[in-house]
């Protein structure tokens, strides 16, 4: 059953990427526990707007946990306290009356703050550009059922492909590594026969790019897996490492 709660928000406000930021405190009164976290922020923003104040900037789009656009660190945890849940899918019934919530943007060298809680994640796009694809021009492809893929392999590939590219893994990692993101893409494509011809080149290029973009190295902290809203497993990182070794030995298959 729905009830209402009162919260205190400490929100990171930063007018622009070069500006200095600071926490500001807001009261969030009469918040229905049926609201999503972002709806709670909407309510706070509506109140700020009516007072002529600048609303809190935050990215979001689908609000269904699939586009990967939303995400903030809530009380130290990317996407907040509920496991396997994006911020847009987190509902206020998981908070108690009187709670204080500290809300901050993703912090990492590779993701610059644009404003308040909105960050620049274009580094992820650059990673995909360096190899996160299969080279198959439109039209130049075989009949779909000509490629047999066991159900098990298809499921494993899908587990990896479920990544929404939100960046929580980077935000959670003490080294700000993008290994889970890259590992998921490398795994998906390495598992599938269509992806094998480019597997060696792909993994090498993507790992090189990751360093170039300022992401840190992986030291097996597993914080990424713990916060991933899609529960992408760190076995994908292990698979990436195996692919790297295979690539070093020059065997394409």
């Amino acid at each position, binding site marked *: 059953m729905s009830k209402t709660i009162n919260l205190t928000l400490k929100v990171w406000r930063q007018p*622009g990427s070069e500006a200095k930021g600071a926490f500001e405190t807001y009261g969030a009164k009469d918040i*229905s526990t*049926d*609201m999503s976290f*972002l*709806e709670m922020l909407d*309510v706070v923003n509506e109140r700020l707007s*009516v007072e*002529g*104040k600048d*609303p809190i*900037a935050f990215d979001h*789009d*689908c*609000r*269904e*946990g*699939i*586009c*990967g*656009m939303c995400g903030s660190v809530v009380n130290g945890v990317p996407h907040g306290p*509920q496991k396997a*849940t994006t911020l847009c*899918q987190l*509902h206020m*019934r998981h908070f108690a009356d009187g709670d204080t919530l500290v809300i901050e943007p993703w912090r990492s060298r590779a993701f610059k703050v*644009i*404003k308040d809680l*909105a960050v*620049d994640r*274009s580094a992820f*796009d650059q990673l*995909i*550009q*360096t190899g*996160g*694809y*299969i*080279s198959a021009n*439109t*039209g130049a*492809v*075989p009949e*779909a*059922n000509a*490629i*047999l*893929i*066991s*159900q098990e392999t*298809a499921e494993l*590939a*899908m587990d990896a*492909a*479920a990544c929404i*590219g939100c960046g929580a893994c980077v935000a959670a990692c003490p080294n700000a590594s993008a290994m889970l993101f890259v590992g998921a893409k490398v795994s*998906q494509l390495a598992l*599938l026969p*269509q*992806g094998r011809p480019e597997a060696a080149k792909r993994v090498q290029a993507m790992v090189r790019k990751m360093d170039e973009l300022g992401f840190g190295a992986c030291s097996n902290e597993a914080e990424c897996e713990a916060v991933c809203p899609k529960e992408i497993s760190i076995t994908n990182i292990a698979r990436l490492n195996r692919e790297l070794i295979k690539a070093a030995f020059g065997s394409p298959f």
Partner: protein
Amino acid sequence: MKLDAKVPGGPLAEKWDKHRFELKLVNPANKKKYEIIVVGTGLAGGSASASLAELGYNVKTFCIQDSPRRAHSIAAQGGINAAKNYTNDGDSVWRLFYDTVKGGDFRSREANVYRLAQLSVNIIDQCVAQGVPFARDYGGLLANRSFGGAQVSRTFYARGQTGQQLLLGAYSAMMRQVANGKVKMFPRREMLDLVMVDGRARGIVVRNLITGEIECHAAHAVVLATGGYGNAFFLSTNAMGSNVTAAWRAHKKGALFANPSFTQIHPTCIPVHGDYQSKLTLMSESLRNDGRVWVPKNKGDKRSPENIPESERYYYLEERYPSFGNLVPRDVASRNAKNVCDMGMGVGDTGLAVYLDFADAIKRDGRESIHKKYGNLFQMYERIVGQNPYDTPIMIYPAIHYAMGGLWVDYNLMSTIPGLFVLGEANFSDHGANRLGASALMQGLNDGYFVIPYTVGGYLAGMPLGEVKDSHPAFKDAVQEVTAQVTKLLSIKGKRTVDNFHRELGRILWEYCGMSRNEAGLLKAKQMIPELRQQFWENVTVTGSPGEFNQTLERAGRVADFLEFGELMLIDALNRKESCGCHYNEAYKTEDHEAKRDDENHCYVAAWEFQGVGKEPVLHKEPLEFENVHLATRSYK
């Protein structure tokens, strides 16, 4: 203006082949001399950008999100249709074509729909080659499931994330071309105007959403793939950023807008539960494969569903439509849900919900099997509603979901503005007055991968185009107009928020131009919207400045367009004095309360020409001729 759909002659099955042969080709060496702008990176825009770049064109691609991978297509759950007939259950190109025409209640163009069905098979091949992890059978072959409005199993899927996987396929193909230098990607840009030179589309003006800078981009052709306008209703299943702005501003520059009142209401969404709500969540239609829809027979029965015995449950779809049962098309399922709730049998706190029950399916197939098919959907439901669908039925209610209407296009997907092509949900599409499930993904990819690469070439090769630079005076004019609007929005400093206006517009449209329409209501709304629009321009508050990341300003521009566009929806609905598909006018119904078409007088596409804000637009009709299917009364009984 005479609408010429440019449908090629000859037998239906040969039209596209013949047309491809007749379209002029751009010499491979010349392709690199052409710039093409693609606005939108959903399935339609992403696939178009990749394919055009592979051919050698220079492509500039724009989207409003921070990354092209986040376009609204990502949220599609259920699947994508293709006439592969892998299940050997009687499917064929012809059947997919027929189902789509019939599903659309005979308000779509035969030749386009046939081409769509024909090319559907290539889409699956393309996606598999890209590494889209579609579901597979034990033998390693592709799996299929059935979807509303069809009696064959032709839907391909990747768990409940089909749109995500297809979009990531198109996005990767496009990113490969970014690396190749053939696509230049401009994220966080919003197209605010179309620029025309000598009567042709030659560029766009966009706002850089980070810096607020107004930028000009020139090209030889412009492709709009900016998605649907369902958010006119405020509450819809669309992503928050989905909008009509790009299409509407092109409309104001002369592109005709077709069938704007054709909006699909999806039957299986999580019901509205509060005033603060920002969006409605779709529960994939595929759930209707195994879930049974029912309400208590006794009005106002407040017992929990488990305590209501079989004999006191009304499985209204199964009873009313014995041959399609729970799988009737969306418009029929939605209207029936409204009907039983209007009769007082609705459930939940508001009485505006019906049950979708999996108890029988779990008994039959086991919990594990149901989990495998719908696990992620059930989890999503539990997160939002706080109830577990394995133990208690899901509650659903219809919500705005998809726009069949859109900018009018000919067989080449070109609008009435030469050089302006429109793809995906943004065009008035192949779905007539109602879209069948799993057909939007098919259409978006079809348009982008397989149609536009040919037809853009045909356009460019067909006529010499002079050079146009972004310093051309036409750009200056457009920049001035756009800047003036931004300045105006920021200067009003009124008392009501943008969302507050948007909500009110949504309530008006839902009430009077939603699932069920009547003349008096439409006329009333037609008074209300211009008043609301006037209040908006006098009393809206938009904080911040133009030269910064300003999300309120972004939304204000979109709502300003919805406030103009909403009126056109009403005008279109008023004009169509019949019921067809989603457009249910209470005055035109059969004895069984089904939509009653008037083929004699309304078998046409209504395409509207802009005359100025608040002025009556001019109607142009494209008559629909059915040479291959028989115009029949749709029946799913």
